[in-house]
């Protein structure tokens, strides 16, 4: 009866409730987090396999997973389990340095579980309004995580994040309601889920659909971090704990794209593809260009990675805008980006733990100080800037190739922006990796909790760059066919 779908978001909720009862038991908190994330990954694996076999999987009419949903569930679960394992090692170091206490640790795990639950629910739900509630819930749970260290700058970043994202989501809600009102007038029946909206798409008022989609794109685009709604991202990324940022960049961004894509299919059915194409290309292009240029002036490596995430969000939007091969490449890019960005953030997390600074001028000699992390950081860098022969290179080429015939100038400018981003990144990474380490700094990694997940992620990313599993290919092709 597809109970797995119910369990997928119930398990993290139960884990959150159990964690709430454990104020001073660090080991038990860690075990609950680990077991919960492993169970979630197992359930996700079952769900994904079922969708590969049956094309969709449903628990009543309220929780439905199609190929696109399965793709996101798989990514969320995989990145989630690595983030949880990494969190254990990361937070142990923070406790040892007396930066946080056991109560704060408990709060972290509770909020992390609630964050995971909200993301799973957003993917599973078949109803636009419930999806909105779930994504709003991610804003609210993560606001406290951004403020985790309780410094003035963290409070400011969290407040800015809350206001901008809540505002964006209210605009998205308005767009959703206008959409549903239009659909309700077209066919006087109770309409609540994506399938029913799609069925009446052709009879929707074109003007109303256009207005609604603009609000939706701006609203959910705020959550994705597309320019110019991106201003919360660098601040939030620079202040939140590293495992949380990995989830933000690798997973939450993809989840926030989901309602945009769902509504896009309906709008395309109602109006043809040109309208959504123009909007996605516009926001995608300015995101890539602005982020690439701003990466140059960053002095904080977490902010640098935030702008890199904005750049990749822009690339994904471009891919969906171009359509065809671009859609396929964008979907695969979402997967690769989730893996490699998480790897990069975890590596940077180790650098932060070692050097206790996020300013690039204070980081030198990572290769000596953290030999294994430096190799993984290098893999992450090479992967994220799209160097061959890794997966991101292929997906970027796919996206740009898709637009070459129809938008040659836009593609040329995007390539230039990507080159600028590469130079900006290269400058930073080489400066950080080489040079003399500070006097008195102990060389070596911290623990297997902060290295093993990175090694496994790196291997996963490298292997998948060359071998795309049949199941993943199937999911991507099916998702692409529904989107375009």
């Amino acid at each position: 009866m597809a109970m797995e779908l119910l369990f997928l978001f119930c398990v993290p909720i139960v884990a959150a409730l159990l964690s709430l009862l454990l104020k001073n038991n660090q080991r038990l908190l860690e075990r609950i987090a680990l077991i919960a994330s492993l169970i979630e990954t197992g359930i996700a694996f079952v769900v994904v396999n079922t969708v590969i076999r049956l094309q969709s999987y449903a628990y009543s009419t309220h929780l439905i997973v199609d190929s696109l949903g399965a793709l996101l569930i798989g990514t969320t679960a995989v990145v989630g389990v690595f983030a949880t394992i990494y969190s254990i090692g990361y937070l142990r170091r923070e406790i040892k340095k007396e930066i946080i206490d056991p109560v704060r640790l408990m709060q972290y795990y509770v909020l992390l579980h609630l964050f995971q639950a909200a993301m799973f629910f957003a993917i599973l739900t078949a109803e636009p309004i419930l999806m909105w509630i779930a994504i709003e819930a991610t804003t609210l749970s993560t606001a406290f995580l951004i403020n985790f260290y309780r410094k003035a700058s963290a409070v400011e970043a969290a407040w800015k994040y809350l206001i901008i994202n809540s505002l964006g989501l209210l605009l998205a809600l308005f767009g959703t309601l206008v959409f549903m009102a239009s659909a309700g007038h077209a066919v006087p029946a109770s309409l609540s889920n994506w399938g029913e909206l799609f069925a009446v798409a052709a009879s929707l008022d074109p003007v109303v659909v256009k207005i609604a989609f603009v609000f939706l794109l701006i609203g959910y685009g705020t959550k994705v971090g597309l320019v110019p709604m991106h201003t919360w991202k660098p601040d939030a990324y620079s202040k939140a704990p590293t495992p949380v940022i990995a989830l933000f960049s690798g997973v939450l961004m993809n989840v926030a794209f989901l309602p945009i894509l769902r509504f896009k299919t309906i709008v395309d059915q109602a109006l043809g593809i040109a309208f959504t194409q123009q909007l996605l290309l516009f926001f995608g292009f300015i995101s890539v260009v602005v982020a690439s240029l701003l990466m140059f002036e960053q002095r904080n490596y977490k902010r640098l990675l935030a702008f890199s995430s904005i750049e990749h969000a822009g690339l994904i939007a471009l891919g969906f805008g171009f359509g065809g091969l671009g859609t396929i490449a964008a979907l695969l890019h979402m997967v690769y980006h989730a893996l490699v960005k998480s790897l990069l953030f975890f590596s940077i997390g180790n650098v932060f733990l070692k050097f206790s600074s996020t300013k690039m001028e204070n980081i030198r000699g990572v290769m000596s100080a953290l030999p294994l992390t430096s190799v993984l950081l290098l893999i992450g860098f090479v992967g994220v800037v799209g160097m061959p022969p890794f997966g991101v290179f292929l997906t970027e080429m796919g996206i740009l190739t898709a637009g070459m015939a129809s938008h040659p100038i836009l593609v040329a400018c995007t390539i230039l922006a990507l080159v600028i981003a590469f130079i900006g990144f290269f400058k930073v990474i080489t400066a950080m990796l080489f040079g003399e380490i500070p006097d008195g700094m102990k060389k070596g990694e911290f623990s297997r909790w902060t290295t093993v997940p990175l090694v496994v992620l790196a291997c996963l990313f490298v292997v998948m760059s060359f071998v795309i599993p049949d199941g993943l290919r199937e999911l991507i092709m099916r998702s692409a066919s529904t989107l375009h």
Partner: protein
Amino acid sequence: MTTSVSLLSVLGILVFMMSVFLHVIKKYSWLVLAYSLQSFCIVLLLVQLAQDRAEPTLYLAALLTLVVKVLFAPYFFMRLLRQYQLKFALAPYLNNSLTLLALMGLTAFAFSPALSGIASLFPAQSKLVSLGIAMIFFALVFLMNRKEVVSQIIGMLTLENGVVFVALLLGVEQPFGLELGITFDLLVWMIIATVFIGVIYKQFGSLHIAEMSKLKE
């Protein structure tokens, strides 16, 4: 039906007027009161729509709105204002004259052909829908124009009221589901307000947005 249309119009205009008054009010307690009155008008609107459309769930939505937005939320905010001895808001970025000019411009835009498509979804009360859209714009201006955390929270809540107002007029299905979602959002905002107002006050010694400049490198 004519009586209910007149009543809807009166309620709509009252909700709209509260949105305008918010911009000229400087005292925090009056801001909370204006929000409470606006929410009460939404309650009456829900009751009227429940009668017109013979939808029992709208009565439930009205009750939920009354308890949470009209009674609990204002009580909660008044307690916060007393706790931190907050009385008057700072002067906004735009003075009253410029603010009202901006609101006039936005009202004209809400009634313009660009957005008339949305209003046409409810032909019987298309002007009310346009007023609702204007209210959403007013709330956005309020958020950008005010310099304090408390004002921003109230701005967010009035934006929610605007969205709900338009949604109800447009006859969106599952209004109870919508109210539940908004109520969930409101309750969590109250948790956030409790936590963040205290934290912001402790870190910055003030609830003024201008004081929050630690992120500037």
